[in-house]
């Protein structure tokens, strides 16, 4: 098959990035054809690149060589899923006629592919920043006031992360290193830590995570499907190629996994629940990257690959609920199953996958991650990740299905039928969730680090079955406690959005006041100087007479004629005397100067 498709040296990113303007120009059926054809071409190009040798694509820029196409197993693995999900999400957004939103989604997906196949740090950071631009446009495409303010916060976070990342890359370069993409050793020094900060922010590592639920939960359903796929998973890819085996990541990942599910348990809105579960699931990947063995790294990569599929499916299903019912608040939903049974079926596939139910893809990758941690003796991480799995099943599997699809039935007068392409996209995501779960061998063929793992060994199957069954039992006992409540739970961005915002506003006002005081002082100085030149006597009187106002009436105690510069002049005699004195002094000075000079 591969022979039929010669691996042209064409970066897959180019197809989407150069094709994005077409989405703005075209309309109607031609646009729809392009909208599906180009992501399909990008996917075909990635698959063609599996075919072995090809020329590297580079260009010269300000004396540097920028590598746009570098291929290895890790890149191809991530590239495949990034291109595939571009196709799935474009299908999901096919019915939308907002050109900016669609172009932004391809800018975002294309630059993610650019990061994946980047040949050096320069191309990496170039596409990394471009990805930020695309995602901000996608957030703002929601076009409500809430979207706009979320987009500003999102942009602020990513500008911070991108700048620190750039600083790290520059420092790394100045330190005498070349710009090739290689793994950093743990004693690589502070440039590597700066780069880690920038990447960790995009991976939503707690406490740098708050932009994620903030922006994703309110984005357009079509935009959220794209957002859920790329930013965090591209960061996971970057962590794998740069920071595999950094043990601090095991801690960071385990904390993320538990933190995310804890918030998901209390949240009311389905898309906020899903957003917090991105943090939790990326925590699994980050922890596995910290372990750093081939099994764990394969687990991280596979979990990212599968997460894009099932999380995309869940976000698409949640978006479908928003499209149909107008809300994703569990307290305002209930009994959806009677109106949308097929949506429940598709959602359940995603929920079973994320929970790690055997025969679904999440079971395989989660087994690899947890098994990878356990095999290296990180037992606390294993227990922590299992603990997080409980929360995953609780909120995504049980809470949303119980209270959203079942529970108290409600009337949905405005329930709209979903467009066909929405269903098609969800099916496109759901099928591989099951296929990879049933035949994990397909994964091992592709997996970048070629680890061996038997997902369906007795104990690997027993563990999730026991865990999930008893979690279900616990949920049944606590169903009243677990019921969603209106509102949301504060996250640590409160510190930024309240005390820091207050302080920032006060500081900026302080500066404005200072500016104003300086301005007022300067203008008073000018006025006084003017008076002094025009009439020194009045100026002196005014200066001496300052504050001599009657406190009761506020009337000036100055002589009335002093109020005007022109009304009070010296008589002629003293004026001539002053002039003579001044000339006399000038003459004396002149004499002294000339005599000392000669």
């Amino acid at each position, binding site marked *: 098959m591969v022979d039929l498709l010669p691996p042209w040296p064409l970066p897959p990113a180019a197809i989407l990035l150069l094709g994005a303007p077409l989405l703005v120009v075209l309309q109607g059926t031609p646009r729809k054809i392009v909208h599906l054809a180009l992501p399909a071409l990008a996917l075909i190009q990635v698959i063609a690149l599996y075919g072995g040798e090809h020329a590297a694509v580079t260009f010269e820029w300000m004396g540097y060589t920028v590598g746009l196409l570098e291929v290895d197993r890790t890149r191809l693995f991530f590239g495949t899923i990034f291109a595939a999900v571009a196709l799935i999400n474009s299908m999901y957004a096919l019915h939308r006629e907002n050109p900016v939103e669609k172009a932004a989604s391809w800018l975002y997906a294309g630059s993610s592919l650019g990061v994946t196949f980047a040949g050096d740090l320069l191309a990496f950071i170039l596409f990394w920043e471009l990805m930020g631009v695309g995602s901000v446009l996608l957030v703002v495409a929601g076009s409500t006031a809430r979207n706009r303010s979320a987009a500003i916060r999102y942009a602020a976070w990513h500008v911070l992360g991108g700048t620190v990342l750039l600083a790290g890359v520059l420092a790394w370069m100045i330190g005498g290193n070349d710009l090739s993409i290689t793994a950093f050793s743990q004693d690589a020094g502070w440039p590597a830590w700066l780069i880690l900060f920038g990447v960790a922010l995009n991976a939503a590592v707690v406490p740098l995570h708050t932009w994620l639920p903030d922006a994703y939960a309110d984005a357009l359903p079509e935009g959220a499907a794209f957002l859920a796929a790329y930013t965090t998973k591209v960061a996971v890819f970057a962590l794998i190629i740069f920071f595999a085996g950094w043990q601090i990541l095991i801690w960071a990942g385990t904390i993320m996994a538990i933190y995310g599910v*804890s918030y998901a348990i209390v949240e009311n809105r389905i898309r906020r629940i899903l957003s917090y579960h991105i943090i939790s699931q990326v925590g699994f990947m980050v922890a596995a990257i910290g372990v750093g063995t081939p099994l764990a790294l394969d687990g991280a990569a596979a979990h990212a690959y599968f997460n894009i599929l099932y999380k995309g499916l869940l976000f698409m299903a949640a978006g479908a609920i928003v499209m149909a019912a107008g809300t994703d608040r569990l307290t305002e939903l209930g009994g959806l199953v009677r109106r949308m049974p097929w949506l429940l079926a598709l959602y359940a596939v995603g929920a079973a996958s994320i929970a790690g139910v055997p025969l679904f893809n999440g079971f395989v990758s989660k087994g690899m991650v947890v098994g990878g941690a356990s*095999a290296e003796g990180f037992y606390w991480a294993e227990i922590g990740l299992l603990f997080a799995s409980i929360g995953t099943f609780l909120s995504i599997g049980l809470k949303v299905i119980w209270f959203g699809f079942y529970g108290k039935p409600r009337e949905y007068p405005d329930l709209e039928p979903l467009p066909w392409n929405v269903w098609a996209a969800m099916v496109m995501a759901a099928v591989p969730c099951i296929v990879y779960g049933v035949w994990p061998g397909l994964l091992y063929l592709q997996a970048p680090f070629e680890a061996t793992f038997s997902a369906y060994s007795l104990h690997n199957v027993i563990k999730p*079955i026991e865990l999930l069954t008893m*979690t279900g*039992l616990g949920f049944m006992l*606590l169903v009243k406690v677990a019921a969603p*409540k209106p*509102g*949301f739970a504060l996250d640590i961005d409160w510190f930024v959005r309240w005390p820091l915002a*207050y302080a920032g506003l006060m500081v900026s006002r302080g500066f404005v006041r200072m500016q104003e005081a300086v301005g007022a002082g300067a203008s008073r100085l000018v006025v006084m100087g003017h008076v002094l030149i025009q009439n020194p006597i009045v100026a002196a009187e005014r200066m001496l007479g300052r504050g001599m106002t009657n406190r009761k009436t506020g009337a000036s105690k100055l002589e009335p004629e002093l109020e005007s510069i022109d009304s009070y002049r010296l008589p002629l005699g003293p004026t001539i005397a002053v002039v003579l004195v001044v000339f006399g002094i000038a003459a004396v000075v002149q004499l002294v100067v000339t005599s000392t000079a000669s």
Partner: protein
Amino acid sequence: MSASRARKVFVVAALVVVAVTAVLTLVFPYGSDPGAKVVWYKRVPAFAAMLGFFGCVIMVPAVKTLAKKVLQRPDDYYSAMERRLAELTGPAPGTSLADPSAPSEAESPAGEEPGEPGKAAGGASAVHQTRVAKGGGHG
């Protein structure tokens, strides 16, 4: 099938499943898997079941209580906060209703003249005032 009966069936089914897996763990102890390291809790029958049950029973009330006591807020919390921020910080200095399109305030008719310092700008939003402050900084 009534709800309570369904519940009973589920409880029995769950316990049967866990009993079977526990027996399997005893018959085929962990470590017979190739390449697996043996640690004590992996040999405990139904360990994951206990973790799942007690994890759920502990985590849900703990997190829910924490949320109820400390973290839970109404949906419009942050938009209300932005309004409060505007009130707390007061009007931006040196600004007034410089924006001619803004509705005039009753208590400051003179404020409609652009560039009149120190006039109260009433209840205009913080965003609006900061924008005005930038434009109206005439020193």
